[in-house]
């Protein structure tokens, strides 16, 4: 995969054509410094999660009551919490449940929303009506309230929090996919495929879905910020990841009581949530500029 | 060409864009004069004809770099004019008609009000006076029931009527120069004739200078007095419309020979052979 192969005038295989397209898309992405910053932070999050054992200075679960409520210093970079656990190490390990929630939600919500929306948009008629009414039911409830209801019913915990958040997020994707499908449906290239005898299924997956993907990907990255905040909200209420798991939202909650005199306990988890949310937002904006087929 | 001073005088007009692939020159040194006559600028996509029209009115995209050795309108230097001065000139002394009236008209405003607004903005008239002038203008573009049409919205009028409304809107301030960019391309052939007849009448009656930009060589040759053919940002041919059949530049000849003609059947259409020398 040399530079010449990527920038060749004439592509000689399907692989080369796709690789070239991705390469030029990547170059366009690099021209947006904020988006690159967002990507860097997200990449950093991933690395921190993977290399947590090596990046943390101490055991995040080790309690040391003699060291409780220490201010940030040489030994504890972010200070300690009310039972003497090192805050820095907990933040580092906290990247794992955060990343887990975000990836799981997106992996569930993306495909389901895409399929429901695309099928509804393409089929039209009764199928569309039924699917959209189902979507409307879910949309009628405020996100956090619905998530709370599910978690209350299913019981607190990380997995249940993921399911709850997914159930509140998928309708937005379905609507988006349906809107894109409606635009695409009346295109001449779809008509051409129909004239050639392509089945509806083939048209849906080879023609319609690729046109929906860019908007959906962007929406997914932008949603991740919201997902993190919802998860933090659940954690804050004690309904997400359970103690002693170092989930950032839960950490934010437990630091509440000590906010005035021991500010570091809530501030650092709060900053982490803010930075990661912002990064996903910037990444999403940058992706939108690159993936928008209209800019081609 | 009349001995009277030209209404519009352009020399050395250049429009360039900076793209990631280098500098792209849309217009490369264009020179022409327009008196009280109809000048047609013909070209295909990418020839720079539309950009020329826009550059005269300083309506080129902000990323464009426009420069000209001379850009004079009725003795005034347009190139040196301030943005404020250009805004005063645009719409009042120089008007521009665009291709698709549906895109150029405000979809939520009644068409009559848009014409009235065009008048009121430049002549500082009262609402009643503007309305009267608008109705009068709609009648001049041969709209039979101006009062009824005044209250319609753009989506309620047909393409031909929309174009007539746009002409009304652009001519109500009584400009001296009219730039029309593909004004009839989106219209059916029979409607086109009607709209052109109206334009013909108005231009004659008011002694307007008209710059007619189009890709339709035949149309320009039959409607205008003089024809300028553009290719790759340059004017390659300049002649009287009546003499177009005797054009000398190979590009023009190539175009003429590749067009199918109702009155001249051909076994096979000639294919234009582009000569890289034309880009020089």
């Amino acid at each position: 995969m040399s530079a010449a192969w990527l920038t060749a005038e004439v592509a000689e295989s399907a692989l080369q054509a796709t690789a070239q397209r991705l390469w030029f898309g990547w170059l366009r992405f690099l021209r947006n410094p904020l988006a690159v910053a967002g990507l860097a932070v997200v990449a950093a999050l991933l690395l921190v999660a993977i290399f947590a054992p090596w990046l943390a200075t101490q055991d995040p679960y080790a309690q040391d009551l003699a060291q409780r409520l220490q201010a940030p210093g040489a030994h504890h970079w972010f200070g300690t919490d009310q039972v003497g656990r090192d805050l820095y190490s907990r933040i580092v390990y906290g990247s794992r449940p955060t990343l887990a929630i975000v990836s799981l939600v997106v992996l569930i919500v993306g495909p389901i929303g895409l399929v429901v929306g695309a099928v509804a948009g393409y089929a039209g008629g009764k199928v569309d009506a039924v699917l959209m009414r189902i979507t409307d039911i879910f949309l009628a409830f405020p996100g956090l309230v619905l998530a709370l209801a599910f978690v209350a019913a299913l019981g607190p915990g990380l997995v249940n929090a993921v399911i709850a958040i997914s159930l509140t997020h998928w309708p937005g994707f379905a609507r988006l996919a349906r809107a894109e499908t409606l635009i695409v449906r009346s295109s001449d290239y779809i008509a051409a495929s129909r004239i050639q005898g392509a089945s509806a299924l083939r048209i849906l997956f080879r023609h319609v879905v690729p046109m929906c993907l860019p908007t959906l990907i962007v929406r997914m990255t932008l949603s991740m910020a919201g997902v993190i905040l919802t998860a933090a909200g659940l954690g804050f209420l004690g309904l997400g990841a359970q103690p002693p798991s170092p989930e950032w939202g839960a950490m934010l909650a437990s630091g509440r009581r000590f906010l005035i005199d021991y500010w570091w306990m809530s501030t650092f988890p709060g900053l982490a949530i803010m930075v990661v949310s912002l990064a996903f937002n910037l990444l999403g904006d940058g992706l939108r500029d690159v993936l928008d087929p209209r800019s081609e | 060409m009349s001995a009277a001073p030209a209404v519009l005088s352009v020399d050395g007009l250049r429009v360039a864009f900076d793209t990631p692939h280098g500098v792209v020159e849309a217009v490369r040194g264009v020179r022409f004069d327009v008196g009280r006559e109809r000048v047609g600028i013909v070209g295909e996509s990418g020839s720079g004809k539309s950009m020329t029209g826009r550059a005269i009115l300083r309506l080129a995209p902000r990323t464009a770099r426009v420069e000209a050795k001379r850009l004079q309108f009725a003795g005034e230097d347009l190139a040196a004019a301030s943005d404020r001065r250009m805004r005063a000139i645009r719409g009042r002394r120089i008007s521009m008609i665009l291709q698709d009236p549906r895109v150029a008209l405000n979809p939520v405003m009644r068409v009559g009000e848009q014409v009235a607004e065009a008048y009121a903005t430049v002549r500082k008239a009262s609402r009643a006076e503007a309305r009267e002038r608008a109705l009068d203008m709609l009648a001049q573009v041969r709209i039979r029931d101006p009062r009824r049409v005044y209250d319609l919205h753009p989506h309620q009028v047909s393409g031909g009527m929309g174009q007539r409304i746009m002409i009304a809107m652009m001519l109500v301030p009584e400009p001296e120069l009219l730039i029309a960019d593909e004004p009839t391309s989106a219209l059916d052939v029979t409607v086109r004739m009607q709209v052109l007849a109206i334009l013909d009448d108005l231009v004659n009656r008011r002694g307007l200078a008209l710059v007619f930009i189009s890709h339709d060589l035949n149309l320009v040759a039959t409607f205008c007095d003089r024809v300028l053919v553009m290719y790759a940002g340059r004017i390659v041919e300049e002649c009287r419309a009546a003499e177009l059949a005797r054009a000398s530049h190979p590009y023009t000849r190539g175009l003429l020979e590749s067009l199918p003609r109702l009155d001249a059947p051909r076994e096979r259409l000639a294919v234009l052979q582009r000569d890289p020398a034309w880009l020089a």
Partner: protein
Amino acid sequence: MNALLAIEHLSVDFGERRGTVRAVDDVSLAVGPGESYGLVGESGCGKSTVLRAICGLNRDWQGAIRLAGDALGPRRSPAMHRRIQMVFQDPYGSLHPRHTVDSILREPIAVHGLGDTNGRIRGVLDQVGLGPAFRFRFPHQLSGGQRQRVAIARALLLEPQLLLLDEPTSALDVSIQSEVLNLLADLRRERNLTYLFVSHDLAVIAHMCDRVGVMRAGRLIEETTAARLREGRADQAYTRRFVEASGGYDRALARAFADLEEAQA
């Protein structure tokens, strides 16, 4: 003459109940095998709707459509898809923006299980005058004329008998139009294709077609030949006006048109 395509009393309605618009009103015509039949008219006359009904894109039509004697229903069988194909007006919209030319041309072959994919693709690209360098390009890397050639190639892959052409050169530059028209004329001769050619441009129609049908407001008001059109002879006043208006601007003519418009309600 044994018609390849026979349309009898075709009517197409859009909208429901009170808002119904009759886009095509009792149109009947026949196209012989190897013939090129032109349908000309202004926008909204229904000529494109006729094409859409024939190829199966529009299913709500009444009347009869027969291909070589076989009656067509609202839906098309795979076999019928192989016999009728269409080329669209907008070269920018008829190719999927995210598929390479290769991928676009693969589809009909895959859908009908024809085999010899590489051979067929190379062959058809050659036929439309595009070399192998174009095979892995995306539509946005092609010019308008090149895209239209790919669209024609795609239509030819299934080796149809009848090719429906919906204003195939209207969106192209004049200098490209002649190439594409020449290509279409050559292909018809080489493959003994039958064309139903729709356009609003009378000069193009007269060049490409033998017989011509003039449509107005959904009705087929006159059937004539290219030769008669060239001579300016026509039965209907509308057709005569159409021919005259196609000759470019004429002040006296325009006056006549204006008076005509005043006379209409």
